[in-house]
């Protein structure tokens, strides 16, 4: 089954070359590039039959074997439903983009992002490995970031892109943590392996609740559940095809997909039930109410998408067969009509130059095909028979009526959301096209074929699916539902179930929906007043508060640590070193007084005393020459110590270097001004001195500890044995330097040459460019 790999990775490949394809055929690039999603749609359509019969397709190979990460794909009923949505709507959206952004200088780049998104999204719904799923998941967030910020010269687009990335990206990280914990519990990162083990190991684990919260954090941020819904309306900064594709039909459903996919592992837990039903219910109502407040076509649609996502979450939370079927049927319904409505909103914007519902009216004559497409989609959204939206709504009512808990509350919420949906559908899909023609910024004209073919097809499919609900239900919904519920189901979908409560609710919905539509202006003002009053405590404000807080904290930390003062940098470094190394030395290593191997001779003690006094003089002295002499005394003292303890080579080198050092110091110091008194306040000096003394004390303790550790036999005997026999040298130190470790010495010479060139360069620079400015 290499087909699944090809299906996922061909999108990435085409994305990589899309800008060049666009350059070759700028006018037809949308049609050309759409051939890939079209081919993929055909590929997945071929799987409908076998999967409806219960087959599943797998492909996989080792990716990072030692971490147990495989790139494994699984195509089952649930993935197939999503794959068809992704590739099918993807085809239409790519075509649409070519027309919508015709002549845009960055259209090639846009195509690349769009195809990259499509491939990533296919990866999300096909991955069977948790890590692979996470990687594709984040890739969709990334492509969404690029697409929202596509018009990157506008600050609003950039801010919206960043917000979407931060919210979904942070949720993605939480998801990764949750998935890794699940991997630890099950001993495998393969989702199908976890499903095979069942929910037992997970639900009996003490980490169950944290894992549940982490996984849901990922799902809720991605699927814009309250209070993370704020990014979705802002994401409308993206061009219309992006809103239709990512932020209505597919990407925002990734969270819903995740919940559906892992449902068999979490289902049965009351937390799972209440988190999904609670967040879903609140999101469903909030989204529908806020949609009524907006006047911009795309923002209305965005909030109604939020509401739809809430509905899906709520339904999956109910965790009954009927509710799951309702969720998956509604997923399909919503993908079709919402994609179409976003695309027609873009076409209206394109044709009439406005997206404000108050400014639009009577466009049916100028834009008949767009009006037809929008009307089909709107009727499906309103749930009018015989559209598939009607089937979806009926199933939802049956599902909420069958809820095991809070039936009245859930049913009323669903009723409320649905009647608002009727009104919203009329506002965005019907109202702009009927009535008297209103004055628009642009003389309205019909959109080109690229722009109407997509929405028209989606609207038509919504109608066609409603005419054959049994076949659609059987082939798409039931197989997907059986994956979510982990058992097979054989419910029959039809337009007419006879007179029952669901039908009664539907009738109420239409009637109330029409009333709400008629009373939309006062209602909208009322909602606006409430949402305005709640804004200061709302999540939108909270996002900025957190963002500003984070930036403020980063600025504070930077101001403290990146002060620009050498003194302060060193204080931090030294303080940390003393703290950490000192702690280890005093509490971990048993610090004790070493045994003296050699007794102190009087001249050695005298030498040490002289050196310490010289070091002190180097600190205290204000005169440059005295400082240099004091430094010299320390250096010559060190060479004497080398001499006393069997290191004549070191002594010789040290004496030579010391002499050169003194000469250099004298040369340079005489170029600097005579007397400069630079001292800090007494308090600062005390701080410097105490840190310096602490460091000195630490080094003393280190030496005292180190001398107790003597490795016997030392490798010195090797050099002693072979110095003469192999390298023909009597002086072992010299032999090590030029023979055994000859390359080290080569490196040393290189460093010296580099330093020499540096010195030369700095001196030449002075004579070349004259004195300081």
């Amino acid at each position, binding site marked *: 089954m290499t087909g699944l790999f090809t299906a996922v990775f061909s999108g990435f490949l085409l994305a990589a070359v899309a800008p060049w394809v666009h350059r070759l055929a700028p006018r037809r690039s949308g049609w050309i590039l759409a051939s890939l999603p079209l081919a993929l749609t055909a590929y997945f359509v071929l799987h409908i039959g076998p999967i409806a019969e219960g087959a599943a397709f797998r492909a996989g190979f080792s990716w990072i074997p030692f971490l147990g990460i495989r790139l494994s794909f699984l195509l089952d009923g649930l993935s197939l439903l999503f794959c068809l949505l992704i590739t099918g709507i993807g085809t239409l959206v790519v075509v649409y983009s070519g027309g919508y952004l015709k002549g845009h200088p960055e259209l090639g780049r846009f195509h690349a992002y769009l195809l990259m998104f499509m491939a990533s999204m296919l990866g999300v719904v096909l991955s069977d490995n948790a890590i692979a799923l996470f990687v594709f998941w984040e890739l969709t967030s990334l492509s969404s970031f690029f697409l929202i910020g596509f018009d990157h010269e506008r600050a609003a687009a950039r801010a919206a892109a960043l917000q979407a990335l931060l919210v979904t990206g942070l949720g993605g990280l939480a998801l990764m943590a949750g998935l890794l914990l699940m991997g630890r519990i099950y001993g495998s990162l393969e989702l199908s392996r976890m499903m095979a083990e069942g929910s037992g190991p997970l639900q009996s684990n003490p980490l169950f609740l944290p894992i549940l919260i982490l996984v849901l954090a990922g799902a809720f941020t991605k699927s814009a559940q309250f209070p993370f819904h704020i990014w979705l309306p802002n994401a409308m900064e993206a061009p219309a095809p992006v809103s239709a594709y990512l932020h209505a039909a597919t990407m925002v459903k990734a969270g819903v997909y995740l919940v559906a996919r892992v449902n068999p592992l979490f289902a049965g837990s009351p937390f799972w039930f209440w988190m999904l039903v609670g967040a879903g219910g609140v999101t469903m109502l909030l989204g529908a109410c806020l949609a009524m407040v907006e006047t911009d076509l795309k923002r209305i649609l965005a909030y109604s998408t939020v509401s739809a996502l809430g509905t899906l979450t709520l339904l999956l939370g109910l965790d009954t067969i009927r509710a799951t079927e309702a969720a998956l049927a509604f997923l399909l319904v919503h993908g079709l009509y919402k994609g179409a409505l976003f695309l027609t909103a873009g076409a209206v914007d394109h044709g009439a130059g406005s997206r404000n519902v108050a400014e639009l009216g009577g466009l049916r004559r100028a834009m008949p095909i767009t009006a037809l497409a929008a009307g089909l989609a709107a009727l499906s959204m309103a749930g009018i028979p015989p559209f598939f939206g009607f089937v979806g709504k009926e199933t939802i009512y049956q599902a909420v009526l069958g809820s095991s808990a809070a039936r009245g509350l859930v049913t009323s919420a669903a009723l409320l959301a649905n009647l608002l949906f009727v009104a919203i559908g009329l506002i965005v899909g019907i109202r702009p096209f009927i009535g008297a023609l209103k004055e628009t910024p642009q003389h309205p004209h019909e959109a080109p074929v690229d722009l109407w073919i997509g929405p028209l097809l989606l609207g038509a499919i919504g109608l066609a699916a409603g005419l054959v609900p049994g076949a659609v239900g059987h082939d798409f919904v039931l197989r997907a539902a059986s994956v979510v519920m982990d058992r097979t189901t054989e419910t029959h979908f039809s337009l007419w179930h006879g007179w029952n409560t669901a039908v009664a609710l539907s009738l109420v919905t239409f009637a109330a929906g029409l009333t709400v539509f008629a009373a939309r202006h006062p209602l909208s003002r009322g909602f606006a007043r409430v949402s305005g009053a709640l804004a200061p405590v709302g999540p939108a404000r909270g996002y900025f508060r957190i963002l500003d807080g984070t930036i403020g904290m980063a600025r504070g930390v930077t101001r403290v640590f990146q002060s620009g003062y050498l003194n302060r940098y060193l204080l931090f470094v030294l303080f940390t070193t003393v703290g950490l190394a000192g702690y280890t030395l005093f509490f971990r290593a048993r610090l004790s007084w070493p045994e003296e191997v050699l007794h102190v001779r009087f001249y050695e003690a005298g030498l040490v005393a002289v050196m310490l006094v010289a070091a002190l003089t180097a600190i205290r002295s204000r005169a440059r020459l005295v400082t240099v002499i004091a430094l010299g005394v320390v250096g010559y003292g060190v060479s004497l110590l080398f001499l006393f303890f069997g290191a004549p080579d070191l002594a010789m080198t040290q004496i030579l270097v010391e002499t050169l050092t003194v000469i250099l110091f004298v040369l340079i110091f005489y170029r*600097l001004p005579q007397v400069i008194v630079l001292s800090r306040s007494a308090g600062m000096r005390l701080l410097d001195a105490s840190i310096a003394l602490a460091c000195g*004390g630490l080094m003393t303790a280190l030496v005292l500890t180190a001398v107790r550790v003597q490795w016997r036999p030392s490798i010195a005997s090797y050099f*002693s044995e072979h110095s*003469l026999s192999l390298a023909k040298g009597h002086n*072992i130190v010299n032999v090590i330097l030029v023979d055994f470790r000859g390359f080290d010495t080569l490196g040393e010479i290189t460093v010296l040459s*580099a330093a020499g060139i540096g010195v030369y360069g700095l001196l030449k620079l002075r004579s070349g460019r004259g004195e300081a400015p």
Partner: protein
Amino acid sequence: MEILLAFLIGGLYAAGFYLVLGRSIGKLIVGLVLLGQAANLLIFTAGGLTRAHPPIVPEGALEAQPPFADPIPQALILTAIVIGFGVLAFALVLVDRTFQRVGTYDTDDMTSTDA
């Protein structure tokens, strides 16, 4: 003797750190030299002290007769001394150039990367 040297090394380190923490960039270089000396002595002492027996194979013998000083720390230090000198020469010229360029001798005035 090790204890005495341990305190000498500690003293040199303390003096070196105090100087690099100070404001004068000239003293900073002096501090760097002191830190270098202290580090060399630390390696030397930690490697074990042997009085007056350099690691040299006597004439006529095939290998050095114990006790003899460990040649490995010595080889390391020899490299360190020379490298230290190279760094010092570079640092000194750099300080000189810095003074010519920014006209200050005070590290507290050098808080930005722009001269």
